[in-house]
Every structure is written in structure tokens, then in C-alpha cells.
């Protein structure tokens, strides 16, 4: 049971990683003058959209937390709308936090907001897919011994890796190297992306290695 679960997780994560790699390779075939650094905003949009779609499709296919109850269509629609609202709020919140951390307030608002959207895609969207719009469940997952399945564990790892990656991405900004990737928010968004990819890769491995220790309370 557990091994098949880990395999499904691995499969999902590999698809995610490939989708991110594709966002850097495919668009130049269709768009002129596209490069991740040069036209960073377009890449941010493409990456966010791509990761969102892939995550939702994976969620529909894999159903990580299958519930036994039958759910009505209306309930599903309200849930979906709730998710949208949550996502939007998280974008705003991330934007606020980024500005509080020192991003420019008025200049390059679009850049900051798109970066916030990217971060939300890497973190909130994942949570929404796996846990649904349920704050209590989120708080439970993000505490020690709160994970109830390997999906929860992978959620912890990918989310933290993305945020830590974005945090480290801020480090090279003050350096006087004059590289194109030091411009706001490129280093941070790249850091977040690398962190996310690293999280996606680490999570199945870590779970596989610790599968003996991981025991989950039933719900």
C-alpha cells in the first residue's frame, strides 16, 4: 500500500518537474525573443499557469485524499469558488509580506505581484489541492507530527523548500556583479523555483528513506 502510494507520489512530482522544465524549453519555439531572464514576466505567467494546470490535472487523476462521501455538484462548485478566493487572498498576502520584507512598494508592482502569484502557486495551490480550503487542516499539517499521509509530508517539504528558496534568492540582490538575474524579482523567483523543484525531488526520497519511521494517525 505504502509503496504504491510512494510511487504515485514520485510520478506526480516527476510530472511537475517536467512541466517546469518544459516552461523554459517550449515557449521559445512559439514566442520570439523569449528567454527566462529577458522576458521574465512572461515566463512567470507561463510557469504559474503551467504548474497550476498540471497540479489540478494530477489532483483529478490521483485523488490523494479520497473521501468516502458522495459530494453534490453544488458542493463541489462552492468548494472550487472557495479555493479561488483562497488563492487570491494568498496572492495578496504574499504580495504584502514581500513588500514588508523590503520589496519596492510602488515601482515594479507587477513584478512583485507576479512573484507572489508564483509563490502562491508553489505553496497555496498545493495545499488547496491536497487539503482543500480548510484552514484548520493546514495548521494541522504544518505542525510537528501533524502529517497524516505521505501527501501531507510531501506538502510540508515542497512548501518549505519553495519559501526557503525564495528567501535565499534575495541574497545575491545587493551584490555588485551586474548580472541580469540580479534584477528584482528574478533571483527570488528563480530561487523559489529551484527550491520547489528540489522539494519535489527530495520529498519522495525522504519519505522512502524514512518510511519505517513514518506512522500516521488515522483521521
Amino acid at each position, binding site marked *: 500500500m505504502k509503496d504504491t502510494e510512494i510511487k504515485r507520489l514520485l510520478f506526480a512530482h516527476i510530472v511537475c518537474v517536467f512541466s517546469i522544465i518544459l516552461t523554459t524549453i517550449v515557449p521559445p519555439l512559439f514566442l520570439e525573443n523569449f528567454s527566462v531572464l529577458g522576458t521574465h514576466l512572461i515566463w512567470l505567467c507561463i510557469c504559474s499557469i503551467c504548474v497550476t494546470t498540471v497540479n489540478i490535472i494530477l489532483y483529478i487523476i490521483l485523488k490523494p485524499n479520497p473521501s468516502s462521501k458522495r459530494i453534490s455538484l453544488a458542493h463541489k462548485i462552492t468548494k472550487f469558488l472557495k479555493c479561488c478566493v483562497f488563492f487570491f487572498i494568498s496572492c495578496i498576502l504574499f504580495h504584502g*509580506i514581500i*513588500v*514588508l*520584507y*523590503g520589496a519596492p512598494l510602488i515601482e515594479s508592482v507587477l513584478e512583485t505581484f507576479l512573484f507572489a502569484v508564483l509563490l502562491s502557486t508553489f505553496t497555496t495551490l498545493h495545499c488547496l489541492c491536497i487539503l482543500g480550503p480548510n484552514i*484548520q487542516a493546514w*495548521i494541522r499539517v*504544518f*505542525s*510537528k*507530527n*501533524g502529517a497524516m499521509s505521505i501527501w501531507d509530508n510531501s506538502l510540508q517539504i515542497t512548501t518549505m523548500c519553495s519559501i526557503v528558496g525564495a*528567501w535565499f534568492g*534575495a541574497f545575491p540582490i*545587493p*551584490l*555588485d556583479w*551586474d548580472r541580469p538575474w540580479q534584477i528584482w524579482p528574478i533571483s527570488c523567483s528563480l530561487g523559489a523555483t529551484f527550491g520547489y523543484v528540489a522539494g519535489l525531488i527530495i520529498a519522495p526520497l525522504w519519505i522512502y528513506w524514512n518510511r519505517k519511521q513514518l506512522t500516521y494517525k488515522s483521521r
Partner: protein
Amino acid sequence: MQRWPVLLFLAWAGSLFFCGIGLFTSGFLLMRIELTNRSSCADPLGAPAWAGQGPAPGACWLPRRVPKAVLLIIDALTFDFARFDPAKDRPRPYENKLGFLHQLSSSQPRHARLYRFRADPPTTTMQRIKGITTGSLPTFIDVGSNFASYAIQEDNLLSQLVQNGRRVVFMGDDTWDGLFPQKFFRSYFFPSFNVKDLHTVDDGILQHLYPTVDGGEWDLLIAHFLGVDHCGHKHGPDHPEMAKKLTQMNEMLRSLVDHLGNDTLLLVAGDHGMTETGDHGGDSEKEVNAALFVYSKRPLFGARLPEEPETVPQVNLVPTLALLLGVPIPYSSIGEVMAELFSGDGDAASAALRQLSAYHVNARQVDRFLHSYSLAAQDLPAPRLRHLRGLFSAAVEEHAQLLGRVREGGPPSPELQARLGRLVGRFQHYLREARAVCMESWARFHPLRMVAGCALIAASCLLCCLASELAALDFPYRRRLLYPLLWGLAGAALLGLGHLLAREGLDLLLVASGGAAASQLGFFWHLGGRRPLPARGAGVRPPGPSAGLWQRLALPMGALLLRCGAMFSDSFVVAEARVAPFLLASLAVLLVGRLLWRGQLAALEAPRQHKKSWQVLCLLAALLACLRLSSLFHQCREETPLCQPSPLLAPLAGLPSAQAKNLSYLLCVASLAGLVYALRRWLRHCGNLNGSGPLVLFVRWAFPLLALCVACYWAVASGAEDTLGKLQEPVQAALEGFPRAAYGLACLGLLLALWEPLTVFVPDGREAAGAIVTPYQRAPSSQADLLHVIPQIYRRMQESLKSQLDGGERGAPVAAYGLGSVYSAALLVVLTLLGFLLLLLHSERLSLAFLLLFLEAFVLLRLHAWVGRLAGDAEPFVVPWDAVTSWALAATQFFYSTGHQPVFPAIHWNAAFVGFQQGHSSHLVPALLVGANTFTSYILFAVGCPLLLLWPFVCEAPSSPRRRLKEELCEEEPMMEMRLRESPERFSAALLQLGLKYLFVLGMQLLACVGAAMVLRRHLMVWKVFAPKFLFEALGFVVSSVCLLLGISLVLRVDCALSAWFQRLRPR
């Protein structure tokens, strides 16, 4: 309660750091005193005339030999660039590109010559320009009258030329504009900052060069090309771009020579060289090896051409050029004239005599400088000076004799010729010795002292860390303090004795650092000697000490390490204003995140806990908002050209629109009022504002008065420009009177706080006496008896406070108000007073920054108190490391957010004149005022440091009366700060531990700065970034540690007064 040992231990730890700082500084910062004297034509230094030469018209010291000169400075023109070797068959991109120089010197050997031009380190452009114009050796601190601008204050070539009516035209690097403001007859400056830009400056010069030369309206033309240097920085020397740039320079020289007149002297010089990678700043052979090329259409040199180009020190250019152009040599020049240029036509004897007269003037000028310098400063060794004096007088005497013989006439005999030659040698010897002596004491690091200072600081950090961990346990002061002090005294005495026996001068600094090192050794020796049994601490410690330690230390130490690492990169030092808040925000977020992770934040079962969690989140948001808002008050430094300094830093008087001025003024006054109101509100909340003690009265009445004084001063100062002529006098009086009144009031308040720091109120003696039920009929005599009484008094106080808050009947017995926050109340009053005092020294609108500072400190204290409570820390007497680290980070952050930067031009010099419009008679007061202004945040945060210990206890108080009603009365009453008094031993240990922890955090930052300055002393940015940063950090450390000591001693003073107060209750 051990009061004196705590203070003594902290003072000792601080002084260990001071010794380390002093030792390092003496090895790293080489100082030179700038003399303000100026040479003039009237100085009696002119050469005695010899036969056949009358005083020439316009002569000054020596007759003018060259009417006009062109000085071309090609930045970073290494000697290798200028040399031409036809034998090379495959030259590298930078070789053999200046063929024109070679062509001139080989075809006209008497007209042109190439020299090696030896630069003195530091080989940065600005220091080199100083060297080429003043003829001195610039060190990092040229102690002069003015730090505020980079303008050269010393006597220099340009000011001599201007003084003597010559026209100096400049084109090129705009660094010269800062160094010589308003000195040029005409000037064309071009921006030098963008190192990537190879062509703007050079093309700009080329556009103006030839028309200006042809126009002829100049006596000295200076052109400073930057392309070669920038090309080196961007591509390195070994690059095709460099070949292009050098070829361009070659063509420029070729056409320039065509434009020159017959009587013009052309000098082409590099200010420094460059390394293989194109950098410069240090003292490696490649960096100091520049080129100098001299050319004139009239023959200059003797026929003899040296095989290998001679080496000329860079300072030699100044006396040579000055005497050739017929102006006095700048006062502080220590260069030696290039005698070949003075030989002129004629036979060997007359050439030697001309050279001798130049040498003679030169030697007399250098001797005069050495004499004045040795009067002003003691850093030149006296025996060497005596030796130099001997050389000088012997040479001068001989010169006079020889002149006498020449005047007697007769054909110059070969014997006379030989003596003339020897005399030239003696003058040269003297001048070179003098330069060597100066160089030895001004331009050399002392690596041994630097390493020793660094090691001393590192060991002190270790000591603080160890002692702070041990302080929680049993801390025998005799072993930990007395013995090390004795060791230190013994070490210092031994060292001093050794010095005396060796008959050297007693170097106090060395002796002090020796003592410090010995006392540290003593500490560690007695530490290792016998481990004290952790008898009392064992029970409280968590079961897994190592894991617990790791968890406790990981976050704050990680933040501290990142901050220390950032000191080693010039970019991060420049961007520190953003680094510190970033780290502080990360630390706070991680703290709260850890609570969430451990499930302590949202214990959903208990609704009350839920509310607390929300409070923590709100506090976090408030902290982040404070951090972000405080960045509105940033100042800019030179290294970030795109940065705009905050408009809020400018004084109100400069605002053009009256409406904006009024609005900002109202805002500032509102923030003042807010500060006063917040303090009174808080004290009332804690019950400290009752009663009629002197301090309470002061808070009630003098604080608004103080705010009024400040507001009035601001009003007068911001409107002073517009006042009519008649009102000038009263306005001046007001400008002096209001700040002085505020100073006086603040000092009075501080004295009151020291004299009578208690803000406890006992309303009525009889009633209070009846209320205290002592189990003892007789007066409590021992400490233990007193300990029994205190909680009772406290409970009474609590009840009374509650009844007052409820607004119910007044029947309840009343004992004492405000006992639970008596320590923090005194500290808060002192902090606010200091805040007002320092506020006065800043420009008006920074009052908003001060408001933010107090708000952020408050939020930090509350956040840490809550976090500590939610995390369920078993040990309330231990201030966690995260709190101390974030406190220190906040101090750094507000250094920047009060409009400061660690560079000299960013110091607010205006602060020296607040209340002293007419200037000062002494240097002490302005230094104090400017220092207080600069280190404002360090002062406030260091004095407020004990609050970190007190606040968790203060926060025990019920925050609202309604909540209290809900709770059961039988629940144990919160004791607040009286819990500290209940266990005086642990209280003093906790204070000591807190002080040591703060010292450790500051010391680590200092250590990082010191390490960066030492390791990167050859870095390009060392004099612009690292050295000023080190200076500010070191001074900040000194200020912080002194203020920390003051804060802790204030708490101990309150404790003292409290003991006396309890004693007074005894007779009842």
C-alpha cells in the same frame, strides 16, 4: 543581591573588548596629522643667490623656469604600458602600444625621458591625486579640521598656483571637483563613477583639449583620462579593448605634441598601476609601478641617457613642478626635486650649482615641515628626527661654504666640482631618509598588532559566551572575577616593568592589552581548574541539554552568523540598511513559525489560547510594518548612485512651501505629544503615575514642558530664515534658549531618576500600615523576614489596583501602587528622557522615526514575552538568545533608520550647533553632541536592554479589568517584577547573564568587522567601505557597552532604593 560584582564583571568584560579594539586600531588605522600651514613666497627659504644670478622677475623661492605645463594623468598607466620594446615580436594587447613616447625619447634624448613612477599605497585614485598634489603620503585618516567633505584642506600645488595668480584649467575625472572645489580657472568635469563606461570621460576631454591648448588661457593644464583604468576594471589589461584604448591615447599624445608651444613642459603620468586582473588599491609591485614621461620642445636633460629608466617616487612630482613653475613648494610635501630638470644649459659646474640651489630650498622646506609636524604629533620617532636634523645642518653648512667659494670667483676647480657632486649626494641622502621615516610611520600596517587585537576580541567573545552560560548556575565571583583581575594586574605590572627595564617608552596601550590578555588567561585557568557542580541548575534544565541547546541556539546564532558573514562583502556592507531589517524580519517570522510548528501557537481547543495566538500574529505584523516603515528614513552613500536620500531627513527650514512646512511641523509635534502620551498612559496602566514622588511629578509636569521646549525650538528653527531684521536678536536667543532649557530639564530628570527612582505610591501611612499583616510582631530584621513581607505588600497593591480599575468602592485596603513594574517604569522614564534629548539633535521630521523606534522596541518586547509564554519556557529568569539577537539587530536597523550611514560625509554635523549657535570653545561638547546624534539607536537600545528581562514579568499583569473579573480570585496573583525581588541572587545572575549575552552579540559583530578589515586590507574598497565601517562599529560598541552598563546600574539603583523603601516600612 550582589550589585557591585555584577557591574564590575560587566565593566571588566567591556574593557577587555576595548583593549582589543585599541590594539587593532593602532595596527590598522595609521594616522597622520594634517597641518594647516601654507607656504608663501615671503617665507625665508629662498636660495641664497650665487654669482652671476640676480633675483629674476617674478621669482619665488627659485626663478620660474617653465612658463607653462601640461599634466596628463592617464589613470592606471602602468609602466609596462608605456614601455616600448621593439625586440618583441609578439606583443600582448597592452604592450608596445604607446610607440610615440618611445619615438620621442629615442629621437630627442635631451627633450624626453621615461621614468618609473612609484606610487605609494593605498593605490586608489583619490589617495593618489592627494599624493600628486600635496606631495605627502595620504593615510586613511588625515586628521584635519573637517570630515564633512573630501576637499583637500592641506597646502597643495593647485592652491599654491592659484595663490600666485596662475590659471589652472582642468578636464576629466570629476573626483577633482570634490577635492579642489572652486580652485580651477576653467574646468570640464565628467562623471567617473560608472566603471563600465570606457569612453565618456576620454571623449569629453578630447573634445576640449586641443581648443583649450590652442587658446592659451592657462598656466597649468591638467587632463585626467579614465578610459585605461575603466578598461582594466572591465576587461583586464590582457584584452583587445585595452589595445584600442592605448592606441587612442597614443594618437592623442601625438596630436597634442603638435599643438604644444616651445616653452611648454609636458608630463604624462599614471596615478597607479594595475594587477593582472586590472584591479588596484593595494601595494603589490604591479600596482605601484606607474609610468611618468617628461617632454619639452626645449632641451631639458643632459646628454647622458640612462640605460634603465630611473625610478621616481610619486611625491617627487610636487616640489619639481612647483619650483619649475616658480611657486613655493606646498608646506607638507616630503618629495625630492627631480634635479635633472633643473640643470639647464651651461657647463657642469653651473648645472650642479643650479641643482644644488633647488635641493637646498627643497631640504629647508622638508626640514621646516618635519619640525612643525614633530611639534603637532608624536608619531615620528625622536631619535630618527635628531639624526635627520644632523644630516640637514651638515649639508646646509657645507652648501654655504661652497657658495662662499664660488662667490670668491675663479674657475671651478675639479676639486670643487667633486665637492659639489658630493653635496648633491648628501642632500639626496637627507631627503630620502626623511621620506623613509615618514613612510615608516604613516603607511604601514602592523600585522602583529592587528592579529593580536583580533585574537583579544575573539577571546573576549568566547569569555562572554561561556560566562553567560555559567551565570545561570552558581557563579562564584571570587573565582570568576577577583582572580582574573589579579592576574591581569600582575600581567600588566610585569609588562610595564619589562618596558621600564628595557628603557623603552611606556606604551600604555600595550600594557593594557597585556593585562587584558593575562586576566582572560586567569579566567579560563580558573574555569578549567574546578568545574562547579550544577547543583541548583540541574533541576530546571531540560532533560536533553544538548538537543535543547541546539534548538535554542540554531535560530539566533544562524541570524548572527549571516549578519557577521555579510560584513565580509563590500556590497553587503553598503546594503546593510536593508540587510539588518531583512534578518530581523526573518528571525521574528521563524520564531512564530516555530511556535506554529510545535503546535503551541494554535491550540485550538482553548479559545483563550486562540486569542493569544492572534495577538502574537498581530504583533508580528506590526513588527514587519515597523521594519518596512523605518526604511523611509534612509540616507544614501556614495557607492549607490541611483539611491535618492529620503526627503524626510532635510530640516524643515529648507522646505519651500509654507503649507507643507506647517503640515510636517504639526505632524512632528503630534509625534512628540504621542510619545509623552504613550509613556504616561503606560505608567498609569501600571499604576506608577500615582503619588507625589519627585520622579512622578517630573513625569507629570516636566515631560509636557520638555516637549513644549522641543516644539518651540523646532518652530523657531524652521522659521528662522523668514524672520524680519528686527526680530533677529530674540530669534537667536530663542534658538539658544529652548534647546538649553530642554537639555537642563532632561539632565534634571536623569538626576532625579538616579536619586529617587521609585514610582511607588503608598497613599496613607496609617491605613497602609494596618493593611500589612505581618506574622512577626517585631520588625523584620533579616532578609528572610523581609521576603515574607514583600508578597503581602504586593498582594495588597494588586487588590487596590484591581479595585481602582473596577471603579468600585474604595473600601479595599490600599498598600502600594505600581510596585509590580517599579523597575521597568524607571527605565522607561529614563529612556523617554534620553529619547527627547537625542531627538533634539536630529532634524525635525526624524521624530517620526523615533516614534517608530519606540513602537518597534515595544512590539519586540511584547512579542518575545508572548512567545516565551506560549512556548512555555520553564526559566523566566533567562532571556533567550533570539530576544537578545533581535534587540541588537533592531539597534543596527535604527542606526540606518535615523538617517545615518557608516561613512564620514554622512555624519550629521549640524547636531553640534543645537543650542550652541555661536560655535564652541572646546572640542568636547560638539564631539559629545555629534556622537550622541550618530549613535542614537545604540544608546537607546543598550540602555533599554534590561527591559528584555523585565518585560515578561510586566506582561503578567492583567491587560484589562474585565478579564480579571472572569478569573477566579483564588488563582494565584501575578507577582510581576516582585518575583525578581523574591530571589535576589537569581535576579543579579539574570542581569549579569543578559548583559553578557548582549555584549557577546555586539562583540561578534565587532569581530566580524575587525576580521573583514584585517583580511581585506588589500581590497579595493577597504578605505571607502571596510575601514569606516570598522570605525563606526567599534565606536558603536564602546557607546553600547557603556550605555548597557548604565542601564543595568539604573536597575540596580532601583533595587537599592526599593530595599531602603522596605526598610522604612519596618518600624510599623
